[in-house]
C-alpha cells in the first residue's frame, strides 16, 4: 500500500491519512462517496465519487410519451417535486408553442413557491443537524413541512412525488376552502421563521461553525456555474424569476436577497430570507387569482413538431434546465436534464482544501445538494 509522505524529517516523520466518508454516512446528503486525504486534522485533497443513485432517466425518456414522463421528473429532486414537474411541462409547452390559461399560471406559481418553502426548510434543518444541533431544528422544520405536505395532499393526492402539472394546465382544480388553509399557514409560518432565527442565526456557537467557512468568491462561483442561493450568497444578484420571468412572476413584488462574503452563514441566511419572500409571493398570488379552465385530462398523445427547446427555471437549489429534442413522434428523441446540484457539488473539492474535517461536513451541508438530481 503506497503512502504519501508529508515530512521526512528523522524526528517528525508524518504521512497522509486517508478517510472515506463512504456512501453510507449519517451526514452526506444521500449516497455520496468522499475520499478525503488528511494531514492530521487538515484536509489536503478531496475526491468526489458519484453515481450510486443513477437510474438512467434520460434513456428511459426516449421510450415514454410526454405525459408518461411526468412522474419520472418527480423523482429527480424529490424534495421539491412540483418545481421539477413545472420545468419539464414548461419545456414541452415551449416546444409545442402552447398557451395556458391565467388561472393555471397562478396556481402553478402558488404551488411552486410553497414547494420552495418546503425545500428550504429541509436545507436549514439538515444543515443545523450536520453541525451538531442534533435533531431539534430538524424536527421543527419537519413539523412545518408537514403542514405544507398536508395542503398538497388535499390538492393532488400524494405527499412526496406529486405528478400534478400537466401539459397545458394542471391535474385538477384547487379544492374548496384551500385558500383559507394556505392563508392560515402563511401566518403560522412567519412566526416560526422568527423562531428559527432566534435559535440559530446569531447563536455564537453557530457563528463560530459557519462564519468564514467555505468562502466562495464571485469569480469562482461564476466559473463553476453555480446557481441558486449559493450564487446569491456570494454577492451576485441573479434570479431567473426576476431576470427572465416565466409564468406570472413579473406581476408580483418580491426581493432577491443576497449575501456579502459567500461563506456558509451567508448561504443559510439567504435561504431564510428567500423563505420569507416566497411567503410574500404566495400571499399576493392567493389574493389575485382569476377564474378559468385549468384541468387537463390525460390520454391525448402529444406530437410536437420536429425541433428542439431549452427552458430553465429557478429551482430551490439553483437553475434546472430541460433540453428536449423532438423528431415529430410521440416520444422525445433526446431529453437532457441540467441539474443544479451537479454544478454546485463540483466546487466542493476546491472549497475544502485546507479546512478541518468538521468543516467539510459544514460546507457540504451549506451547499445543499441532493443526490437524486446529480445522478438522475
Amino acid at each position, binding site marked *: 500500500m503506497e503512502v504519501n509522505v508529508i515530512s521526512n524529517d528523522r524526528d517528525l516523520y508524518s504521512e497522509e491519512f486517508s478517510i472515506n466518508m463512504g456512501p453510507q454516512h449519517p451526514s452526506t446528503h444521500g449516497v455520496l462517496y468522499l475520499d478525503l486525504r488528511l494531514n492530521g486534522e487538515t484536509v489536503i485533497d478531496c475526491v468526489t465519487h458519484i453515481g450510486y443513485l443513477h437510474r438512467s432517466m434520460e434513456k428511459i425518456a426516449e421510450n*415514454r410519451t410526454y*405525459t*408518461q*414522463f*411526468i*412522474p*419520472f421528473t418527480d423523482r429527480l429532486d424529490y424534495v421539491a417535486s412540483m418545481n421539477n414537474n413545472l420545468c419539464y411541462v414548461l419545456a414541452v409547452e415551449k416546444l409545442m408553442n402552447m398557451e395556458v390559461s391565467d388561472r393555471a399560471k397562478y396556481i402553478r406559481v402558488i404551488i411552486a413557491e410553497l414547494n420552495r418553502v418546503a425545500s428550504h426548510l429541509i436545507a436549514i434543518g439538515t444543515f443545523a443537524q450536520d453541525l451538531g444541533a442534533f435533531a*431539534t431544528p430538524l424536527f*421543527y422544520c419537519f*413539523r412545518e413541512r408537514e403542514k405544507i405536505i*398536508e395542503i398538497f*395532499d*388535499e*390538492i*393532488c*393526492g*400524494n405527499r412526496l*412525488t406529486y*405528478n400534478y402539472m400537466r401539459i397545458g394546465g394542471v*391535474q*385538477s382544480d384547487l*379544492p374548496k376552502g384551500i385558500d383559507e388553509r394556505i392563508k392560515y399557514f402563511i401566518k403560522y409560518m412567519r412566526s416560526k421563521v422568527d*423562531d428559527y432565527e*432566534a*435559535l*440559530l442565526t*446569531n*447563536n*455564537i*456557537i453557530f457563528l463560530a461553525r459557519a462564519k468564514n467557512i467555505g468562502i466562495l468568491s464571485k469569480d469562482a462561483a461564476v466559473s463553476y456555474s453555480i446557481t441558486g442561493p449559493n450564487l446569491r450568497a456570494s454577492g451576485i444578484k441573479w434570479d431567473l424569476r426576476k431576470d427572465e420571468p416565466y409564468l406570472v412572476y413579473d406581476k408580483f413584488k418580491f426581493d432577491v436577497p443576497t449575501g456579502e462574503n459567500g461563506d456558509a452563514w451567508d448561504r443559510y441566511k439567504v435561504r431564510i430570507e428567500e423563505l420569507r419572500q416566497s411567503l410574500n409571493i404566495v400571499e399576493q398570488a392567493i389574493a389575485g387569482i382569476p377564474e378559468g379552465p385549468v384541468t387537463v*385530462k*390525460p*390520454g391525448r398523445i402529444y406530437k410536437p413538431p420536429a425541433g428542439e427547446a431549452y427552458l430553465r427555471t429557478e429551482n430551490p437549489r439553483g437553475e434546472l434546465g430541460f433540453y428536449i429534442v423532438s423528431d415529430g413522434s410521440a416520444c422525445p428523441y433526446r431529453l437532457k436534464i441540467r441539474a443544479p446540484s451537479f454544478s454546485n457539488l463540483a466546487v466542493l473539492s476546491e472549497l475544502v482544501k485546507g479546512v478541518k474535517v468538521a468543516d467539510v461536513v459544514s460546507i457540504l451541508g451549506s451547499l445543499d445538494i441532493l443526490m437524486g438530481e446529480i445522478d438522475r
Partner: protein
Amino acid sequence: MKHYLKNLILGPISLIQGLIVTFKNLVSRAITLQYPTQKQPMTPAFRGLVDLRPDKCIMCYQCVKICPTGCLAIRHEESPEKKKSLVTFEYNMELCCFCGLCEQVCPTIAVYMNKIYEIAVYSRKELHINLLSTDKYAQWANPTVK
C-alpha cells in the same frame, strides 16, 4: 480586545435566546400521533392502491397504455354476439409508482384509487393482485377518509 469583550457579552445573550425558544416548545403540547392506536384520516383525493369496478369497465385499454411503468395487464374475450367480457385484470404493485394517471384517463371511472396505504407483505407473490377477485384487498385495513 474590543472584539473579545463584545463576543463575551453577546455570546451568552444569543445562547439564552435559543434556550427560550426550546423551552417554549418543551412546555407546549406534543403533536405526534401514537400510531397504530391513533391514525390520521386520508384526504378525499389521496392516491392509494389501484382498484377496479368490473361492471363499468369497457376494455378500452387506455389505462394499460398510459401507465408509465406498465403495471396493469388486461385480457378480454369477445362472445359471438360482440359482447366483450373481462378475463383477467392484473395489477403488479411492485412496479406501480402511484401517479394516478390510470384513474384520470379512464372514461367510465372503472379504475380508481382506493385509500389503502398500509401495505406490508411477507412474500412478493402477494403483490401481484388480480383485481377481479372479490377478496383482493381483504387483508389490508381500509382507513377513514376526511
